[in-house]
């Protein structure tokens, strides 16, 4: 019953976010600030992880290709497919649930504990719109992060595959281009967009409606990470079933 209650409360929150809007000029500065914190601030860790995981995918594939009849171009093909279809959109989103999600929950939770949200409400500000709407808009730029992740993942695979002596540069490029389906990118970005909305709203829900003190802020961040990950994985399954099967 409490789960149903939470789901209902979550959708009421979404409705509230798009209710009475904050002044445009204030929203604009808040959106830029959120883009800086949520998106630009995540580029370092996303780039680092993408490059090295791309490299590991290439090495793992190369080490498992024992049959001489299987061409080495498969290393690049397998790396490209796994990075574009799953690693970049899904794996990075799980990492972002930890980084960005925890930040959103703890910052809103702290505002709740220190009565800053009450202060906004008493001033007559729609606190849901003021606090969460800029985060949602900022997360619309999340597909750029995933595009960078895809690029760096493949670059990492190239670096590990070619410089590690597992495949020649030409063979890697050939494998990268073979059987490329544009729709796979469309699929990846559709789910990235959905993940962005999940990453912005579920942690926001857990922070905004938090009750208690400082200890509960930590608990809310953990709960938000768990639920964001669960919803991401389920959404990933449903979208894959709908678009690719």
């Amino acid at each position, binding site marked *: 019953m409490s789960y149903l209650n939470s789901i209902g409360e979550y959708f009421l929150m979404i409705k509230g976010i798009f209710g009475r809007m904050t002044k445009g000029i204030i929203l604009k500065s808040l959106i830029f600030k959120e883009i800086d914190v949520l998106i630009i601030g995540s580029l370092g860790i996303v780039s680092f992880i993408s490059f090295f995981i791309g490299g590991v995918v290439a090495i793992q594939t190369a080490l498992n290709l024992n049959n001489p009849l299987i061409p080495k171009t498969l290393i690049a093909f397998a790396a490209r497919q796994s990075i574009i279809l799953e690693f970049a959109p899904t794996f990075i989103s799980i990492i972002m649930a930890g980084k960005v999600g925890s930040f959103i929950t703890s910052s809103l939770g702290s505002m709740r504990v220190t*009565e*800053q949200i*009450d202060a906004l409400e*008493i001033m007559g500000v729609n606190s849901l719109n003021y606090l969460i709407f800029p985060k949602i808009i900022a997360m619309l730029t999340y597909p750029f992060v995933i595009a960078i992740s895809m690029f760096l993942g493949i670059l990492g695979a190239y670096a590990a595959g070619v410089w590690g002596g597992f495949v020649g540069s030409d063979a890697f490029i050939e494998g990268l281009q073979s059987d490329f389906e544009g729709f796979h990118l469309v699929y990846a970005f559709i789910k990235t967009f959905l993940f962005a909305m999940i990453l912005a709203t579920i942690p926001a829900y857990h922070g905004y409606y938090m009750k208690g003190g400082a200890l509960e802020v930590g608990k809310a961040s953990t709960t938000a990470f768990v639920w964001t990950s669960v919803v991401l994985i389920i959404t990933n399954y449903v979208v894959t079933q709908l678009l690719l099967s």
Partner: protein
Amino acid sequence: MIEIKNIHKKFGEEEVLKGIDFVFETGKTNLIIGESGSGKSVLLKCMLGLFTPEEGTIEYDGRAYSNFSEEEKRELRKEIGMLFQGGALFDSMTVEENVMFPMRMFTKTRKRNLIKRVHEVLERVNLKGSENKFPGEISGGMQKRVAIARAIVNKPKYLFCDEPNSGLDPNTATVIDNLIMELTKEYNITTIVITHDMNSVMEIGENIAFLKDGVLAWKGDKTQIFKTDDKTVTDFVYSSNLFKKVRKAQLQGH
């Protein structure tokens, strides 16, 4: 003036407010005092529209809150200044931005004029020179003064203060009390202060409502409260050792 009539508020089966009537007068510091759990904060939240009472009316200068449309409620909130127990300053904003916030949100005033007004108010609360500091960089007393500046920047008609002295040393607490009282007179506003600090009662208690178990147990002013023989009130007023000694001296005729 804010008049509350027969306010009842329940949480589940528990009745927290049991029919409270009181008039909070304009130009005076009106205090709601009482022990923890007596219903002070619930009453304040009912008056602010954060809780809806099951019964009774709250009238802001003759305008019944329950009859307000959503738009009217929003407009009323612009006439309210609120000082929270912990200050509730926005951590990510400087002192200047915090004080400017209500004006930026609700007025179309040019930035130059906004800054002028903010500096005026900060000077009034003796915080000139702290404009560019963040809340984390200033003391608790200064944070309270910033919160007061933010509450009065839009020249409110009603000022609510929730335990304004909590966590402050006696000297700073007196400064805050006096500031609240001075601003009440200066702007001729209806100020409502929730407190259980007897020093505040002595300093600024011009119109006092004493709550006990959700009931208005006594009303009067700071002179009367120290003269009353009502046991419910005296038990509360003289609960601290210092005031017990004062009471003893009083009874012995010193």
